[in-house]
């Protein structure tokens, strides 16, 4: 069989790539790898591996697109597509029902499943789990609340492939973030009333959005002092310095600082009222002290510059993006290559996110799956990405054109901008007991795969495949999201051919012999005919299999 011989070819190449050393190309972070190793042959399977890392799931024609453009050509085109903003959803779709506050989830589905700028959308989803807001902590109700959350996502979408300095400024001044981490209406001290500035945003901006708690090396490992102790990036004095910086800001359409109105502007950047801004000196990172008497805007600009230029930002953000897109335990050299690009894109620019994302995806470690000998390549997929992959692979859509599925969290323990706290659904440091902890590996996504959640996820995926396909549900409601498995039904008369097709589309041709045999045996229980059932159950088995839950 042609496809099987192709698999052998790829495997042979991987052995060569191991010898070639994935840690050698420290300068550009771009293939081809040095040392005479040839660039990976661009197979269909290699294209699917890229699409798993860079999109919300593989469609057959995406594979052709990658093959036609090449890896770099495909990435470049994706990076330069104009953004498909989520806020526009509200002008495309007529929102009819009363339960409008959660419409931002439906906007997310429409873009994540159908938008052309898949890479940008996928990066925004990753950033939405680093620069976190949680719907439950956002005060906006009704349609304006929904729009404000989609608008926050658009901040990540647009700036996520811009410059990280601009991103943190846009996030800092976004009124939804302002409400969520209480920088909005944070005011200067009033000693008579024992009032001091709110420390919430100052703390989480540094701990979670930019530099983390301890000093890092360029390769993401933790720095230690002469006694072997970690080195804190900041103390309470710096927290208080930044807390004083972030005083005096409120909604853009207020006439007075203390004013509140139902029509408060939840979309545009906050504006400052200088009378409520602290004008004293402020201690920032690395001993920098802002002078007294500056405007709110001057303090904010200089404080964000101070954070942005901290050496931790590159490794801290680069590693987390690698973990979200490619692999949970990148080699130190991989992190260093990407962080180096973060620090300087080659043209002297720091924080160029297009260069960073390209460095992550073009890296030899991402492309060949080879990593340092003490690590294991790959990751558990985020639960939601299993459903997006299903809908993209089999053109899931509803007759009314809407993806109306808001209570995502209940079944998937994860939903767009629905984190229970600013610490996201799972920690980047989570390691299950056993071989992960023993080897110092992390598996962040496994934190939400527990005895309390596995059945819900599995049931939902089974239902989406077995009950919500175009044959099982032949009289759908307008909002039923159905997958189309006609193509697979037609292949089901040749089970081996169907398996080859699904292996490529869903597993980048990494299907184990056990999964293949189990699927074939299962299809055989349907006898000679029943092609619709055979196709649906073959997909259902693969989609709920341990192998599909993992990206390698």
């Amino acid at each position, binding site marked *: 069989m042609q496809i099987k011989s192709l698999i052998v070819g790829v495997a042979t190449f991987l052995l060569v790539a191991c010898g070639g050393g994935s840690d050698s190309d420290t300068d550009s972070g771009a293939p081809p790898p040095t040392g005479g190793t040839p660039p990976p042959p661009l197979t269909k399977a290699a294209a699917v591996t890229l699409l798993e890392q860079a999109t919300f799931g593989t469609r057959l024609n995406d594979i052709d697109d990658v093959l036609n453009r090449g890896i770099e050509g495909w990435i470049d085109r994706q990076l330069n597509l104009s953004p498909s903003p989520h806020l526009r959803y509200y002008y495309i779709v007529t929102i009819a029902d009363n339960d409008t506050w959660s419409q931002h989830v439906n906007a997310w589905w429409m873009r994540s499943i159908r938008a052309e700028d898949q890479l940008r959308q996928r990066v925004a989803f990753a950033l939405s789990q680093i620069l976190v807001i949680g719907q439950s902590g956002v005060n906006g109700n009704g349609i304006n609340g929904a729009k404000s959350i989609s608008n926050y996502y658009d901040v990540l979408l647009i700036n996520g492939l811009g410059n990280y300095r601009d991103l943190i400024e846009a996030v800092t001044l976004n009124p939804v973030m302002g*409400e969520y*981490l*209480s920088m909005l*209406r*944070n*005011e200067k001290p009033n000693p008579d009333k*024992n*009032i*001091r500035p*709110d*420390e*919430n945003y100052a*703390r989480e901006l540094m*701990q979670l959005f930019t530099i983390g*708690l301890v000093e890092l090396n360029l390769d993401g490992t933790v720095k230690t002092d002469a006694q072997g102790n*970690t080195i*804190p990036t900041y103390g*309470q004095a710096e*927290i208080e310095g930044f807390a004083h910086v972030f005083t005096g800001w409120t909604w853009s359409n207020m006439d007075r600082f203390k004013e509140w109105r139902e029509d408060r502007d939840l979309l545009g950047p906050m504006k400052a009222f200088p009378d409520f801004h602290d004008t004293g000196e402020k201690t920032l990172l690395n001993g920098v002290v802002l002078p007294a008497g500056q405007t709110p805007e001057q303090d904010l600009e200089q404080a964000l510059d101070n954070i942005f230029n901290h050496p931790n930002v590159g490794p801290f953000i680069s590693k987390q993006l690698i973990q979200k897109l490619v692999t*949970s335990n990148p080699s130190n050299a991989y992190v260093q290559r990407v962080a180096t690009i973060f620090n300087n894109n080659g043209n002297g620019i720091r924080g160029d996110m297009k260069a960073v994302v390209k460095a992550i995806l073009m890296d030899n470690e991402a492309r060949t799956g080879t990593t340092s000998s003490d690590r*294991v390549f*790959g990751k*558990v997929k985020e639960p939601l990405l299993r459903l997006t992959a299903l809908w993209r692979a089999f053109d899931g859509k509803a007759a009314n054109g809407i993806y109306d599925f808001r209570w995502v969290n209940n079944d998937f323990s994860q939903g767009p901008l629905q984190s229970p*706290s600013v*610490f996201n659904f799972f*920690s980047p440091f989570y390691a299950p*007991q056993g*071989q*992960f*902890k023993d080897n110092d590996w992390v*598996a962040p996504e*496994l*934190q*939400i795969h*527990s*005895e*309390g*959640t*596995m*059945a819900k996820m*599995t*049931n939902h995926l*089974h*239902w989406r495949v*077995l009950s919500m396909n175009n044959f099982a549900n032949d009289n759908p409601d307008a909002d039923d999201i159905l997958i189309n498995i006609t193509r697979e039904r037609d292949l089901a008369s040749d089970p081996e051919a169907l398996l080859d097709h699904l292996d490529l589309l869903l597993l980048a041709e990494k299907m*184990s012999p*056990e*999964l293949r045999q*189990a*699927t074939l045996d*299962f299809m055989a229980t349907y006898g000679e005919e029943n092609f619709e059932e055979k196709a649906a*159950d073959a997909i*259902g*088995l693969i989609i*709920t*299999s*341990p*192998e599909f*839950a*993992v990206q390698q």
Partner: protein
Amino acid sequence: MSKLNRRDFFKLGAGTIASAGLMNWSQPLIAAGAPPTDYKAIVNIFFLGGNDGFNMVIPRSDFEYNEYSASRQNLAVARGDILPINPITAGGPQFGFHPAFSEMQQLFSDGKLGVMANVGNLIQPVTKGSLENPATPRPRQLFSHNDQQDQWRYGDPDTTKTGWGGRLMDYKVMDNTNALLTAMSIGGRSKWLVSDQNLDISIGSNGFDRYNYVRPDRNWTQDRRTAFRSLLDTNYSNPFTKEFSDTQKRTMELIEQVGDLTNNLADFTTPLPQDRNRLAESLRMVGRMIAIREQLGMTRQVFYVAMGGFDTHDDQNTRQPALLGQISQAMKYFYDLTVELGVENSVTSFTSSEFGRTLTSNGDGTDHAWGNHQLMMGGMVRGGDIYGTMPSLEIGGPDDYRNDGRIIPTTSVEQFSKPILDWFDAEPAQISTILPNLNAFNANAINYML
């Protein structure tokens, strides 16, 4: 039991998991032996975000209330609204509960609820004076949510990466027919229950969901079930795939062998609080597990239940009363439930939270601080009293770490935890493993158990 060293524990622990069916589909999880004669459970109720305990337990005497009121300003509870409590140990200043705590006031006066004053993460006993020396050890990353949660759960400033609930489980699994059910979290994985030697599990507050499309009891699902299960019996070399598969398999087994027992329980007669109360729903699930303890052969169990929303940087005067009201109703519900189940003397609950909050405000909310009050509840708690040392609430006073209302703890988490371990029959040598830093403190300074 006490003769076992840790190496033996490892063997026994692993064997116990296997015999509980974790690695073997064919073995039933249900105990066949005689029901145990003695049952004990501890329940750790964690308030995520940092509960403002200094507005939960409030001074009422003239001097102390005025100090409280001057410090807390617009966040202070009006004196007339405080619910009085009358500790057994009389004399000294008077105290009361927040007005949303009426159920807790009742339970306190019934002697089933105690207050632990000003407890927090510490490395050694400290004072304001000793802390002025930068060399004096103190918890790393004070005021950071996840770091302080971790230290509380690990019970160890050196972050051994196992929780003290998990280490306690290691000494108790052999008392249970089903080791896998020794340590359970309701609503999410908890680092408090992590062990190097045994598995803890996490389930939702509604209990066990069936795998609808691969049920064991429907003819039409059998071929699919065979295929689905065969994938969970595959030996995966990729550790991610293996871990996912093992968790799926364990979940399926739990649901099929324990799920029926809980799902078939008659409803409890103790009514849930009228308003939606997620903490009460989680505690109801704990009650369900306790209700089937004899069928499962359980004698010692450790439960973790968490409630979020306590990070009240904003709008505290609205948010905190709602939170405290939910705590009060949920904890009273759970105590009543243990009475209904006849286990009120076998179940001890205690509260945790990563830190207290600043006495000063940021306008309409509070920021991260350190010391905090906690609660202990159960029939074997010597309730109706306040334990430990009440701090001065004066800004810039003797207990104010940085002169902005962050109170230095006067009791360590280890000291607070120790009486529960004694009650749970952990032996001294075991306690030194479970709470390795206890010996930095007076280990027997606090005892609130009967």
